[in-house]
């Protein structure tokens, strides 16, 4: 059973637009949600993360909006640049930290057109 789901599978935006990537989860015990960015041939790298006690987290041009009641969250990438073209994974874990197992979504491939 897929515990973390992402949509869309692929997203194309123009340079300068805001890209919105969606994520939902099944397990109410999940309380830590990192987003990873992955470029071809590389491993995933942590972009930004949020804990369930917060409903919003900002870091540079990246913002997570979190809705605990609906069990979903979204990643907003403001002023998208071609260098942001990558695959983005939403993940979730219990215990309030990243030390335990991470449950990953299938990823959203973002393409930013100059």
């Amino acid at each position, binding site marked *: 059973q897929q515990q973390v789901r992402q949509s869309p599978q692929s997203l194309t935006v123009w340079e300068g637009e805001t890209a919105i990537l969606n994520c939902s989860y099944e397990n109410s015990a999940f309380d830590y949600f990192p987003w990873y960015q992955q470029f071809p041939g590389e491993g995933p790298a942590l972009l930004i993360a949020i804990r369930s006690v917060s409903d919003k987290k900002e870091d540079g041009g990246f913002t997570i909006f979190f809705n605990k009641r609906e069990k979903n969250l979204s990643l907003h990438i403001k002023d998208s640049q071609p260098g942001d073209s990558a695959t983005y994974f939403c993940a979730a874990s219990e215990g309030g930290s*990243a030390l335990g197992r991470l449950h990953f979504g299938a990823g959203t491939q973002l393409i930013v057109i100059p």
Partner: protein
Amino acid sequence: GPKVLQIPSHQIIDMGQMVTLNCDPVSNHLYFYWYKQILGQQMEFLVNFYNGKVMEKSKLFKDQFSVERPDGSYFTLKIQPTALEDSAVYFCASSSDWGGDEQYFGPGTRLTVL
């Protein structure tokens, strides 16, 4: 940033053979992980390892799998014997419980079982 290295980047072996995947974690990290990603699917947790012991493993971590980190050297995943369904990209990650608990991922080893 901190780097996790994985050796080799690609391994091709015949079904039934043994294979060892090597991970060089971030220096001074104490938590180690293996994840498996089949082409087109999400990354799935296999096992985590701390203080010389397996802390948690998933159903994907079959009896043919084993992990160890002898004398602080490589963190290894051994599969013996291999099966066709073991073909995937295997990602290693490491983490510490101080200064942030992010899991740092390696670039992956692509395993092809023929």
